């Protein structure tokens, strides 16, 4: 099997205890697999559970049922049932995630925000910062901004810092939640190139992209998430 990631019978319902136990079904019967070097784009209107699926793969949201298997060099981990420390280890070794918004940390310089996952994975800090700088340049973040905390950056700049952070390490699975939403055409093209490069290197990618051009450029398969709509 060349599947790096495989979801099977995954379902998710939120129970809102503060609203009298209101149940909000999000998705049910989610079923798809991603192979090495393949990019799967999740499509569908807002509120159909695309981001929730990404968050379940990353382990931020719990699954009510089903399995999410990630192949980490032949070692298969089921995120849906893994212990917290297994998920943390999996994130370090196998799961990259570019969220919609950068969660800025006070006082930490942009270049260190980008380099952090590499440093955590054991790459020497100087080396990690060098690679972070190269990627920030490629994403058109001027060098004078690298030493500043990104909290004061524009939306597009923050998003590019976030992209650089997610793309810096070579992880087998990469999850992208609207990575180009606040970017201009030039920077969108850079992201398309970065995704193509990741695919060549064998990454399995799951992406949410609303921009038609970007989607056409990166998707090998488009999955309509409305088919996983949970019955209310």
């Amino acid at each position: 099997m060349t599947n790096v990631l495989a979801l099977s019978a995954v379902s998710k319902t939120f129970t809102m205890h503060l609203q009298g136990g209101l149940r909000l079904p999000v998705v049910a019967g989610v079923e798809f697999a991603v192979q090495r070097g393949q990019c799967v784009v999740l499509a569908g209107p807002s509120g159909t559970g695309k981001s929730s699926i990404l968050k379940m793969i990353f382990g931020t949201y719990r699954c009510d049922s089903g399995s999410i298997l990630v192949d980490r060099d032949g070692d298969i981990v089921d995120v849906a049932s893994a212990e917290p420390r297994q998920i943390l280890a999996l994130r370090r070794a196998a799961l990259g995630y570019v969220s919609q918004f950068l969660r800025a940390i006070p006082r930490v310089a942009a270049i260190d925000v980008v380099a952090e996952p590499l440093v955590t994975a054991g790459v020497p800090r100087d080396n990690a910062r060098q690679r972070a700088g190269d990627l920030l340049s490629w994403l058109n973040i001027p060098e004078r901004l690298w030493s500043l905390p990104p909290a004061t950056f524009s939306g597009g700049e923050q998003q590019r810092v976030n992209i650089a952070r997610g793309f810096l390490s070579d992880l087998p699975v990469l999850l992208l939640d609207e990575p180009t939403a606040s970017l201009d055409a030039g920077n969108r093209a850079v992201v398309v190139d970065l995704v193509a490069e990741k695919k060549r290197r064998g990454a399995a990618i799951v992406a949410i992209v609303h921009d038609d051009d970007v989607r056409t450029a990166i998707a090998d398969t488009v999955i309509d998430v409305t088919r996983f709509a949970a019955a209310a």
Partner: protein
Amino acid sequence: MTQPDTDQPLLVAEGLSKWYGRQLGCRDASFALYEGEVIAVVGESGSGKTTLLQLLSSQLEPSAGRVLYRMRDGSTPDLAALGEAERRFLFRTDWGYVHQDPAAGLRMNVSAGANVGERLMAVGWQHYGRIRHSASDWLTRVEIDPARIDEAPWSYSGGMRQRLQIARNLVSRPRLVFMDEPTGGLDVSVQARLLDLLRGLVADLSLAAVIVTHDLAVARLLSHRIIVMKDGEMVESGLSDQVLDDPREAYTQLLVSSILPP
């Protein structure tokens, strides 16, 4: 930074309970902490957070349950079975304890250098020059001007005192640090600096830590896992982002939804 190679937990709490007379402090707390792992214990005042911290660090005797700790030699004694001298030795060498009030964790009338150096002497350092050098080095690491090494902490600001307390705790390279509201009572800008500092140190030293805080932002920033306590019981635990972004229990949902966005 390398990942700890052992799969054995550093500390295991089993069914820890504490009653103060008929008043429940903490009931049936069980979890395992691994090397390099940071657990935040959150909950409101009176939820049993501090009781749990004191039980874990054997400052309180449990009414039921036990705490197992993996010593450097690989043995895993029940902390209650250790003698007082052995426990004190553990406290001075392998553990740190950061109090909310720095005055509780520092000696306020002796110099900053002595506050830090004392921990090194406790683990057998004797050479004055090396102790002073190491103390000065640690002051720099916690962003205190080493020129102020001979001043006593009463002349320091609140934020500096807290950073000094952290230096005093970490200088002897403990494997496990307990922190009770380490950022409580500080101005937000001072807090941000301290948090960033703690975050870096915990990662660089691959420290295991149990941090009690009522501040969920602090928990998100510093911890890998979160334990939510209410009325003396653990109501929910899990990955930090999971507990905060997909809270399962009614009480956790209330806590998370009670935060005012900045």
